[in-house]
């Protein structure tokens, strides 16, 4: 014990610069993540703004029971999982495919142009993205319905139909982020030694075989890390875009936990219930990250920690 203290003392004296550099991150965590945790307790209280956090009486798990009894909340949980599960299935491979495709473009000018075009939507604000989507799918003047009418199909009121919300939401999410997310994979591909390909060429591998047998295995650790992070964020559906695109007519498929919290807490003033929903969300997300990491560790030797 004493040895350890002496060692620590020495260690800090020698390496203090490193800890100074670490400080901003620690402060950021304390101010923006740990301090707000104090407010989490209102999930277990009968909270009133007038009595304050400390002054409000405890309510135990009351709010959680309320939530689990609420059809609306359960629907939001289900929608969250369905939407994020579908975006994972359809959205996750897209940046990888894009990166592989960019890597096959030999003409440098064409490659740069193509990359810029697919990166671009990432830099557009979500509000404008929503505007573009709403305009494009408008029944009277939208491009989509215009095209459909050319094919002799009656205009569809896409944004008011629950069955259309998910495809539109997931599609626009992919359009906005796939290009930019491909950068990580492109960087991983750039790290593959060119002689591996040359050796494969001499051995007679085709471009397809090189993608399957060299590039993909080489970027597999990156893919797995990105997948763990994605699964950890499974419940973080881009809720701004949902808020901007959904309407009561589509709640059935579009209302997610975060929009539920937003409506209950900020619009309905039920802060304690909203906090309980938020905490529920966080706990589930926590379990998901840990599980994903464990699975990845067991099957691929690649993991976040």
């Amino acid at each position, binding site marked *: 014990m004493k040895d350890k203290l002496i060692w620590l003392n020495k260690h800090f004296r020698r390496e203090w610069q490193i800890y100074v550099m670490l400080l901003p991150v620690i402060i950021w965590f304390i101010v923006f993540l740990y301090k707000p945790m104090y407010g989490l307790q209102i999930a277990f209280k009968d909270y009133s703004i007038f009595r304050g956090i400390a002054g409000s009486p405890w309510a135990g798990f009351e709010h959680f029971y309320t939530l689990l009894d609420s059809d609306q909340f359960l629907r939001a949980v289900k929608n969250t999982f369905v939407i994020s599960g579908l975006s994972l299935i359809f959205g996750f491979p897209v940046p990888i495919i894009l990166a592989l495709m960019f890597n096959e473009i030999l003409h440098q000018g064409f490659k740069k142009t193509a990359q810029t075009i697919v990166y671009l939507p990432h830099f557009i604000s979500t509000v404008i993205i929503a505007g573009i989507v709403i305009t494009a799918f408008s029944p009277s003047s939208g491009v989509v319905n215009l095209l459909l009418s050319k094919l002799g199909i009656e205009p569809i009121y896409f944004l008011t139909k629950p069955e259309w919300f998910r495809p539109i939401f997931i599609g626009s999410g992919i359009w906005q982020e796939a290009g930019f997310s491909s950068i990580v994979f492109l960087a991983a591909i750039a790290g593959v*030694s060119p002689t*591996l390909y*040359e050796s*494969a060429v*001499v*051995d*007679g591998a085709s471009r397809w075989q090189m993608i399957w047998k060299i590039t993909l295995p080489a970027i597999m650790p990156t893919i797995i890390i990105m997948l763990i992070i994605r699964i950890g964020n499974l419940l973080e559906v881009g809720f701004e875009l949902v808020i901007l695109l959904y309407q009561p007519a589509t709640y059935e498929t579009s209302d997610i936990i975060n929009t539920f919290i937003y409506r209950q807490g900020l619009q309905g003033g039920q802060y304690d219930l909203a906090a309980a929903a938020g905490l529920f969300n966080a706990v589930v997300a926590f379990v998901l990250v840990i599980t994903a990491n464990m699975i990845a560790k067991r099957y691929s030797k690649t993991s976040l920690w």
Partner: protein
Amino acid sequence: MSNVLLQGISKSFGELEVVHSIDLEIASQEFIVLVGPSGCGKSTTLRMVAGLEEISDGMLQIGDRVVNDIAPKDRDVAMVFQNYALYPHLSVADNIAFGLNIRRVKKPEIKRQVADVAQTLELTDLLNRKPSELSGGQRQRVAMGRAIVRHPKVFLFDEPLSNLDAKLRIQMRAEIKLLHKRLGVTSVYVTHDQVEAMTLADRIVVMHDGRIEQIGTPMELFRNPANLFVASFIGSPPMNKLSGSVTVKNAVPSLDIGHGASIKLRSDSVSSDDHGRSIVVGIRPEHMNIEPGNGPGWSEIPFDLTLVEPLGSEALIHAMVGDTPIIMKVETRNEVSHLNDATRFYVQAEDVRAFDAETGKALDFTVAG
């Protein structure tokens, strides 16, 4: 029968030509080493043979086919790279089998061949390891295994030993030579290490600035370098160079190097017309003796000794002849103290090579064979 034929092969990157019209005929089963200083175009030439670089001009023939426009995979060559190019995610066995898998060889056949090659290269116990779990020498062997298992017409090596430490390099060098003896596959081997070139090659190709300076067996290059570049590139320490002017007395030519010293020359290197011409002579460190030799062909040249470096059975003597530094290599006979008293060296006209001072071309050079 020639196995690989390069005729007027050139390579340009954009406007810049880096390999200038190379002619080289490689016989079947021959071990050819391309050697030269960094950037002279060895790798580029090898990569053109492999098909990894397009040939800008000239004709390349492998076997009896012109392969200029034939894809690397159809050229029937296998290449070993400097950094081994092993696939990090595949086991040793799968690395060796890679080329066969690509060619859709049947599984049992692959297994048999991999086991065969592993046996040859003593890799049998390592077949299940990943490349990251191997030592440098083992990785090197896996890379060779991957080439061998394909049974190609030609092996191409690009500095395969340069990532190994000195001791391992000597060991692997011997293994490569043995392997070539056993398999008898035509090999083209690139290195910038002249010792490697000397020990491995049937014939050495010395390259410089994208051109071939000389082609010959190791001993031909050593005894009879075509020019000053080859003379100083082959042999270690390099050939000593001394310049002066030719005098021919009684039909016996010699080189006046100033300070009253002169070196007798071979009579076939210069003629009486050359009297007064300034030339450079090259003398191998090994051909300089500090014990007097007797006979008409011997010359005696005084020097100022600067340093003696004992190497064991041999020693290097650094000295100055006039303003020119020279290095001699002499036998020690387990004793070096007497070397410090040396004041002159003796050399036979037979061992003195004469070169044109301007062009660097050997005056007595005759193409062997």
